[in-house]
């Protein structure tokens, strides 16, 4: 693997301002015709009679970053992307906050949309990241990812 390992991890929630800045940073890349963005948000599920108020994210970071670098390389080549950015939160993210930001850009929309969608699926299935769902009374359960 020749490509430099890029850090995707952000301490805490991903702010709407950060997302806005990343979009605006692409205005100079005028070969782009379409961006696709996926934002993951922490859901306040109710389990029994308790509500989830936050998710604590942890990761085996070096392995996750190596795998993500390889996924990124594959996606850029497969879909001829102009660029691609991925950010994932670590630490406690409250319900309603953004914990995942996948941003793909290409000359045409289909490549950007397909690459974004495939990246989200692969990232959820392949990266060693764990979410601990915290309830209002401080009890917790380990998050299980849904098929889609």
């Amino acid at each position, binding site marked *: 693997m020749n490509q430099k390992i890029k850090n995707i991890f952000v301490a805490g929630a991903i702010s709407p301002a950060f997302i806005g800045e990343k979009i605006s940073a692409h205005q100079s890349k005028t070969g782009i015709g379409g961006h696709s963005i996926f934002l*993951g948000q922490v859901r306040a599920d109710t389990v029994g009679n308790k509500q989830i108020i936050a998710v604590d*994210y*942890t*990761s*085996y970071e*070096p*392995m*996750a970053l*190596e795998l993500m670098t390889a996924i990124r390389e594959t996606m850029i080549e497969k879909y001829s992307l102009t660029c691609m950015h991925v950010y*994932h939160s670590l630490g406690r993210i409250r319900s309603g906050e953004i*914990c*995942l930001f996948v941003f793909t850009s290409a000359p045409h929309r289909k490549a950007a949309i397909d690459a974004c969608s495939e990246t*989200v699926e692969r*990232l*959820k*299935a*392949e*990266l*060693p*990241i*764990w*979410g*601990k769902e915290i309830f209002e009374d401080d009890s917790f359960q*380990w*998050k*299980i*990812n849904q098929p889609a």
Partner: protein
Amino acid sequence: MAVKIQLFGQLKQITGASELNSDAVDTDGLVKEITTRFPLLENLNYLIAVDRTIVQTNTFIKPGQELALLPPYSGG
């Protein structure tokens, strides 16, 4: 020669440790040893990574290798 094993997620919670030492010579031996020390792990699913790569079959452990036990992922 002891190797260090990193634990994550539910495995870290159950064992109360983010790192363990083991004298196991291969990954099957490691699972046996860990399960004896922490019987609660017997019914848990996890993968073993050697030097950041998942191993699916019994694998010899060499000194200095980076080992990790990984419960099912739930990122995103």
